[in-house]
């Protein structure tokens, strides 16, 4: 739905700019996912701020509608560098200064192709830039501008609706594989980020969308996806013969979630499960221990599900709940590891 909002808002250049800024924000956040502590987007001056323990990353996000449109490159570079100069004047502890854009050659308004800037989804350190572009930058910033902290990121960000985010989605996919063990989550993840960012920015007038989220909030979509669904059918079938997984998973989703969210229930289970598991000597046994545990101990938890009359169904729900909580805990551990949350 947030995606729909973004699509609808694309009618105006400023909305396109905001979408690009969100995409750039996600990219830079994922670039720094282990160390970042907060993410801030300021629509008014195309600002992205990423806080790290060692200092802030200031980024300027400038975009064009049309692929190949170089006409505003010079002007956008100038604006971006001016804002970055201001940032660095205010905060002399800046860690990095980034100009992020979807203009293929960010340094020239000329249509002529420069072989040096040929591909999207590339970043350039200042030291790797062409001498004439270095000169250009130096002319645009003051003497005290820390050029060694300056980077240029060129991302592919064109098209209609969701397609715009294709370049960034590759990165989201990689992240989803690492954190959630499944690349297919990338679409949902992008959707949820858009929802989150837009909703947190939507209180202020649309021309000046902005938000400031700490790490926990910024990564909430990842956590939510980790705990989104009950354990999958193939896992379920390893502990239960009940033939209608869909029925149990759908109709009791809310109950399963509730038990998982309740500290006393989930801790009673995870505490018992973990302490037993820790006593298992071999890795192979420990990876399949969850099925064994659920099969053997589900009756211990049956009392929490007395509202289900049918005994078979009750067993299925209890088993699915236990398995879900165990799998979720493992997923959350993984997310925490990958994101250093």
């Amino acid at each position, binding site marked *: *739905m*947030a995606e729909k*909002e973004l699509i609808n808002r694309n009618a105006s250049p400023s909305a396109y700019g905001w979408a690009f800024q969100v995409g750039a924000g996600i990219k830079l956040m994922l670039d720094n996912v282990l160390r970042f502590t907060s993410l801030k987007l300021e629509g008014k001056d195309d600002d992205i701020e990423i806080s790290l323990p060692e200092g802030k990353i200031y980024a300027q996000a400038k975009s064009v509608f049309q692929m190949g449109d170089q006409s505003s490159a010079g002007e956008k570079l100038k604006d971006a560098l001016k804002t970055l100069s201001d940032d660095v004047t205010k905060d002399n502890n800046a860690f990095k200064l980034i100009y992020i854009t979807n203009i293929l050659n960010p340094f020239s308004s000329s249509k002529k192709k420069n072989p040096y800037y040929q591909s999207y989804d590339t970043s350039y350190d200042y030291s790797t830039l062409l001498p004439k572009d270095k000169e250009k930058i130096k002319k645009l910033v003051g003497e005290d501008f820390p050029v060694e902290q300056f980077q240029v990121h060129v991302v592919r960000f064109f098209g209609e609706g969701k397609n715009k985010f294709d370049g960034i989605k590759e990165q989201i996919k990689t992240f989803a594989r690492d954190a959630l063990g499944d690349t297919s989550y990338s679409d949902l993840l992008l959707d*949820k980020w858009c*929802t*989150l960012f*837009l*909703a*947190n920015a*939507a209180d202020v007038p649309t021309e000046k969308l902005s938000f400031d989220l700490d790490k*926990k*909030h910024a*990564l*909430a*979509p990842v*956590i*939510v996806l*980790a*705990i989104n669904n009950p354990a999958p059918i193939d896992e379920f079938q390893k502990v239960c013969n009940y033939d209608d997984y869909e029925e149990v998973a759908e109709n009791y989703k*809310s109950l399963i*979630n*509730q038990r998982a*969210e*309740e*500290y*006393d229930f*989930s*801790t009673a289970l*995870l*505490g018992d499960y*973990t302490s037993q598991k820790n006593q298992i000597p071999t890795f192979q046994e420990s990876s399949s221990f969850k099925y064994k545990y659920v099969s053997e101990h589900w009756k211990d938890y049956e009392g929490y599900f007395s509202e289900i009359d049918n005994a078979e169904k009750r067993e299925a729900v209890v088993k699915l709940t236990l398995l879900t909580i165990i799998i*979720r*805990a493992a997923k*959350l*551990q993984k997310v*925490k590891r990958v994101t250093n*949350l």
Partner: protein
Amino acid sequence: MRILEFKFQHKLSYSEKCVINKDSQVHVFYSTTNSTGKTTLMRAILYSLGFNIPDTELVKFGNYEFNLKLSVKEKIFNIYRQGALMKVNDIEYDLPAEEFAVRALLFNTSNYDLLNNILGAIYFDQEKGWTLLNRGNIIGINRFKIENFLRGLNDDTSDESYKLDAEIKALDKKIAQYNLMLDVAEYQAEVNQNVNHDLSYNTFDEELENDLIPIRQQLKIVENELSLINDVIRNNKNFINFIEQKKIFVLSQDGSPIRVTRHNLFNYEMISDSNEARKSLLIAERNLLKNRIAKIEAMREKQLTLDTLPSVEAQLVQRLASMKSIGAIEVKAILDGLKKEREKLSNSLLQMTKHNNVWIDEVCKTISKYVLELNIPQKYKIDLFTHNLKSKTGAILHKLVFIYKLAYIKALSKKLGYPLPIFCDSPNGREVERSTVDQMLTILKRDFSEHQLIIASIYNYKNIFASANIITLNGKLFDQDNLFDYMKKNNKLEE
């Protein structure tokens, strides 16, 4: 009756303009081009005579003071008119309330029918005058009606004809009403046919409403989930608060006691983090949904204000449609009845008008004489009371109007006992040949030499009226002159 002098002054002007300053049988308001004020000048004279003459596009008569010197049967009237105020020999009259009093004084008769039809007899207006044969609008609200005119000539003031006339007027009003009702009936039938009631006036609004339904449903789901997760979070907090308050200690590996808090409780942080994550996304979703609902509702509101007018209109149409239907056939039947009744009364009135009326003969005689002279073809039957003008072609009608009016003027002058002036605006209009106009004017010169003749034309007719007073207009007559003009004219401006 003769106009001896006519002058006027714009109320902001410094000088008076004298247009007619001598007695002359014939005055010609002449200019070779149009739009120089000829017609306005002629109307200004009639206005000064107390007639209700509408303003012309550029000249508002109310802005001028008019002075007119008139002689009627040796009597001299000094007339002053400014807007509603009229003074005749220094006696004030308030127009239009005393319009007939003034007219009665000036024209020397108290016969209502005559006073009411004088203007139609003596004035050939350039627009309608030359098609107005025996009934119709002359100018503004002034009308002419042959029956009334003839009854006036005959001094027929009987109650009966008055009653008939009043009844006909009432019937005319009714007929007009029923004509309107017939329109309504026909429109209503049309509405009933189109509608039954598939005319939709709020499709856009409904569309918005339809958009809202799924969003509201989704909002309900999200809010439900949000309240569940809030409950769980609260319960967890209460549980942890309880444990922390209980001051529970566990043994550490080295045997020292460790206080149990939320920070060292197994699994607590994980659960609370994931619950908070779910909560913040649910809140985000809820806020976006609410935002969208608010946006759509704002659009609806905007739409509603925009819709007010059409919806009022729609309501009216609906009301018309739901009204007990007025049968067009029924209305038509009534209308036909009324028309028949009117015809009957008109015929009675006509009979009464004709009864013992020597003036009809008089008028007809004059007409016959000139019809011959002006070569009106035989097939045009002379019917004083005709309602049919359409069958008469432009040039013939022009001549006939001229002839009829000459007959009216002749009869009226005879009745009043003095020759009435003739106001003739643009006699050369339409498809009339110059030779015909000359022929017509020659008749005037020959047979109406006692009548003062006032002509407005792009010709000066010197060939016919050699001694006419030709007043040449340059288009500035009614302009208000400024102080500069005034001083220059009076040589008061120092060079």
